[in-house]
């Protein structure tokens, strides 16, 4: 055989595996959310006018606030990652904490929204739009909760001083995941809040 022996890494660093594993995980997540979004769009196209009258009761203001909150948290987790790269432990801790606070803020706003909507009589059983609204934002919310658990774990490790020397790459994987959660919201926001 004339092919030269390719230099494949036999003992890849943890980073290579971790990053790749996260990408494949996100690929399957994209297909799931993509499925929801595709279903939603098909229904929206088929439904016509009734949809708008249901969709106009969401709170665009709160949705916008949450969009800003989540986008900012994407920025802060990148900042945390940069700080770790520069060995700046103090600001890494700080940025992780801010990310965490923003994630909680997102859930808080969402909770207020849910409470208002349900008390105004818009439940998942009110109509097909509301079913979609609660399922899609609910599933996204669960992903935010998952992100809080992961970022919280990173924060605790950062405080205890165990987030360095080999484990700090986890901030990158969780960051990837957190960007994904953010991007899903970027799709959900116009579909759910601006679709009337």
């Amino acid at each position, binding site marked *: 055989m004339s092919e030269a022996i390719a230099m494949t890494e*036999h003992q890849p660093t943890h980073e290579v595996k971790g990053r790749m594993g996260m990408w494949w995980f996100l*690929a*399957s997540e994209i297909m799931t959310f993509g499925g929801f979004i595709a279903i939603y769009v098909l229904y929206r196209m088929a439904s016509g006018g009734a949809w708008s009258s249901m969709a106009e009761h969401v709170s665009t203001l709160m949705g916008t606030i949450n969009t800003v909150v989540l986008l900012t948290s994407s920025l802060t987790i990148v900042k945390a990652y940069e700080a770790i790269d520069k060995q700046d432990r103090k600001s890494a801790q700080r940025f992780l904490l801010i990310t965490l606070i923003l994630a909680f803020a997102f859930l808080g706003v969402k909770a207020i929204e849910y409470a208002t909507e349900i008390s105004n009589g818009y439940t998942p059983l009110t109509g097909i739009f509301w079913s979609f609204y609660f399922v899609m934002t609910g599933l996204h919310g669960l992903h935010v909760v998952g992100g809080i658990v992961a970022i919280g774990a990173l924060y605790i490790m950062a405080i205890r001083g165990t987030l360095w020397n080999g484990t700090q790459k986890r901030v990158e994987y969780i960051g990837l995941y957190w960007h994904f959660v953010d991007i899903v919201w970027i799709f959900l926001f116009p579909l759910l809040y601006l679709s009337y």
Partner: protein
Amino acid sequence: MSEHGNGHAEPTSFLRKYVFSIDHKVIGKQYLFLSLFMALFGGLMAYYMRWQLAWPETAIPGAGWIPEPMAFGGIIPPEFYNALITLHGTIMVFFVGMPLLLGALGNYLVPLMIGADDMAFPRLNMMSFWTITTASLVLMASFFVEGGAASAGWTGYAPLSADPIHTGVGWGLNLWIMALALEFTSFLMGGINFLTTVVTMRVPGMTMFRLPLMVWMQITAAVLFMLSVGPLIAGAILLLLDRTVGTGFFIPERGGDPLLWQHLFWFFGHPEVYVVLLPGLGAIMEILPVFTRRPIFGYKTIVYSTIVAGALSFLVWAHHMFVSGIDPQIVMPFSITTILISVPFAVIIFAFMASLWGGSIRFTTPMLFAIGTIVTFIIGGVTGIFNGSAPVDIFIHDTYFVVAHFHFTLFPDVFLGGFAALYFWFPKMFGKMMNETLGKVHFWWTTITFNMVFIPMFLIGAGGHMRRIYNPLQYDFLKPMQDINIFITWSAVALLVGQLVFIFNFFWSMYRGKKAEDNPWEATTLEWAAAPTPPPHGNFETVPTVYHGPYEYSCPGQETDWQPQHVEKGSVAA
């Protein structure tokens, strides 16, 4: 993701070594036993169904133990019959086919074939096994909840599945959805693991085009699964909400669309067929060169054809829905893509055929099963053309013709291909040879009775015999075919009984079989040539370096007729 495979220590406690093991070889065997165990259930269900079809509403021998209200003194009511068809399909595809071909073969072979010491994420690997085990338990438990097990068919068409009032099945169907969701999660974790392992952990010299084809088939299957299952997971969540919360995603009077479920199911369903199919064909691709003593014909062509077929499989799903009420305008495009998908598969089959030519063929048990797979799979392949043709499908859709067709694709693949793989890799896995004579008896018995079961099904299908009916004697036009139904049932009984030969051989050989050498088949791939039998924890004593492709048999100018991948060829000129 906290632990990584490289260099994890060999565990000493029984629990860590055999139960919660993170060694890919142990996990592979766990998948193997799970799938064989579930296959027994799937087979038993097939027996009950066949008996009911041959002698409707009579007491089934061996069904007396089933408690009421599932059966009454061995007589099964239609509700339970529908649960049987549902669970038979679900079990055989998701809990036998996938764990056997992807779980067992994939886990055991992929790291060994690429020279790695384990999977990229051993703990994730363990989790995926225990997730599917949980899924199996949930599925079996669904028989015993009030209302019985899911009975809306393995395809679970809405609105029959979307509202308990239509079937009377309550939590049984919810548990069925949950079991499927767990199973999907398990194989998503597995797929992430396979792909990461193959991309990052190949030994020096193991380029992508030197991978054994089995590895190619496994990673293609993983990608197909990953890209197709997401929308169905979304659909399953919606279906579960329809049933439990009362939303109406699939219920027309609440604003939903029942056809949507079919689109989601089959968008996944067709790639899923190839997810199961490819690793089975992969086993054949490994076995053929070993026992023909020549390279497989057209390695790269096979790889490209597989990728083309995989890509096309995302464009054919509506062929399951030709009579479902979709717009007739989109039927013909799907009919054309469906029929065109025969081209890449024809290429693969031609490659198999060409691989026989010029060989020096040894008829061992694994080789017989491999040949049996090819010979019967062709029938499954060509009958797909009938189903794929839209006008013909109007008549044969939902008849036994379709049942015969997909059994002719999946049975050769999962069982004949699976048996070929087991007879072939058993020595490596368990360190013992399986008995050849019993293996050959098993082969002939299985292949012949299998054909006796499913060839007549084509005939009654052409006669219009609907599938999924509890009692064919209700219809005058089916009565003349009842003798064939009885013949099929006897053949099915024979097919099932014949598997006792395999079960005996399997366990007897495990303890009493002849001790296997490191490389009893004189094969070239790393799992045989470079790893001891059975491979120790960590697989290889030294990291092998790969010098050439996987199927270098009968190279001109070499002393032996097999050149292991990790041994440089002699310098003798051809």
